[in-house]
């Protein structure tokens, strides 16, 4: 780079540094986001409770009764019991407590200049392309509730999993598929209610709630020291295993499903 280039680059960087959004705009947008945050959280919680607890109570009871019979029969026969237990091992694990303390607390200084490492954005891929990346057959649901459309599908090499994201009216769910050898059970709080569900010929598990991080603030220093299970946290997830594949259907964090559990089961059962 010549001296002229360097001077020009320096001038350009200097120019970029001086560009600031209008202070009033920044402040008003922050205020708007704060209000939206509260509204969005209340809206999601109210909507999900209404849908789940009232509209689908009958179907849920029927499904639960049917499941009880299936699970009872399965667990009563020793060879099947062993197989069934093995199939449940990669789903949810109940923690000893609802409160966990991080071995190493995470300390964050507020108002510091962020250190950013950018990752390449995922290109839009087809299921077939993702299947080629993953190296295993990727199943897609033959049935998806009306209005839901596939928005994104990708293979996560680190997690060795394929994620499909579907959305309708701003509400979405992820369908994750991973190989059993790459899967680990997901820990939930001691008080979490684990509901067993039927997916075709197998038994899966459904849980609502999530861990929330506990933090303390001292001036500009925030310390995240542990996490607490919150059964009311708007997040729904269901896991099941078919052969060598473990499937994980979940809402986006902060949202409960707008679908009854029977619809989740229908989608899961339609994978092909």
């Amino acid at each position, binding site marked *: 780079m010549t001296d002229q280039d360097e001077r020009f680059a320096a001038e350009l960087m200097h120019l970029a540094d001086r560009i600031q959004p209008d202070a009033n705009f920044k402040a008003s947008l922050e205020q708007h986001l704060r209000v939206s945050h509260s509204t969005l959280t209340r809206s999601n919680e109210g909507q999900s409770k209404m849908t789940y607890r009232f509209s689908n109570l009958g179907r849920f009871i029927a499904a639960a009764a049917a499941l009880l019979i299936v699970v009872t029969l399965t667990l009563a026969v020793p060879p099947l019991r062993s197989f069934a237990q093995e199939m449940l091992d990669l789903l949810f694990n109940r923690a000893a407590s609802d409160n966990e303390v991080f071995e190493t607390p995470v300390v964050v200084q507020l108002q510091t200049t962020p250190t950013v490492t950018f990752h390449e954005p995922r290109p839009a891929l087809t299921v077939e392309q993702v299947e080629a990346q993953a190296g295993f057959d990727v199943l897609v649901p033959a049935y998806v509730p009306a209005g839901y459309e596939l928005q994104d599908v990708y293979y996560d090499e680190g997690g060795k999993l394929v994620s499909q994201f579907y959305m309708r009216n701003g509400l979405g769910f992820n369908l994750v598929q991973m190989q059993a050898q790459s899967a680990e059970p997901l820990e939930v709080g001691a008080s979490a209610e684990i509901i067993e569900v039927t997916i075709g010929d197998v038994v899966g598990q459904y849980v609502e709630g999530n861990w929330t991080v506990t933090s303390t603030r001292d001036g500009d220093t925030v310390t995240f020291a542990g996490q607490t299970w919150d059964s009311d946290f708007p997040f729904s997830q269901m896991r099941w295993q078919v052969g060598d594949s473990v499937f994980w259907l979940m809402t*986006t964090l*902060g949202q409960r499903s707008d679908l009854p559990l029977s619809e989740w089961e229908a989608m899961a059962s339609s994978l092909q």
Partner: protein
Amino acid sequence: MTIDPDAPLAHAARRDPDAFAELYRRHVDRVYRYLLSRVGHVQDAQDLTAQTFTAALEGIGHYNGQGVFAAWLLGIARRKAADFFRGSRSDLSLELVEDVLVDVSTAHIEDRLQMAEVVHAIRQLSPDRAEALALRVFGGLSAAEAGQVMGKGEDAINMLVHRAMRDLRERLVICEVES
């Protein structure tokens, strides 16, 4: 493994408006600069910045910790800019750009390096060069980081930026002569 300094805040931001506000304060300048350099219009950059953070708020639960938060946020901003260009505002004339940028603290900008001219010149670069330049200069990324965003090697980014700088300098000189 490096812990993304935003990750705990992003987790807390699902329920805590203060945490989301802190994320907003950390990244709003970067997002705004990037968008302004892409669309060249203060009002549009503000609108797209608001749209970016609103979408981030609505989708904060979808951020699952894979990749750093800033990359996720800039990904939203890039999609918003792409949506913008699919609309009818992709053909701003230099005159219009100058008009709408008149309130961008021009007192701080030296002569021909006024933002209006720079944005106009950037828009005449090839897409790859413009993107590399925007990421490096206005997004404040290193060459390696910009390379990750664009799916190119560090050397390729350095070359793109070098050529973008050369083109930009020539175009700005031409602008000066013409004016």
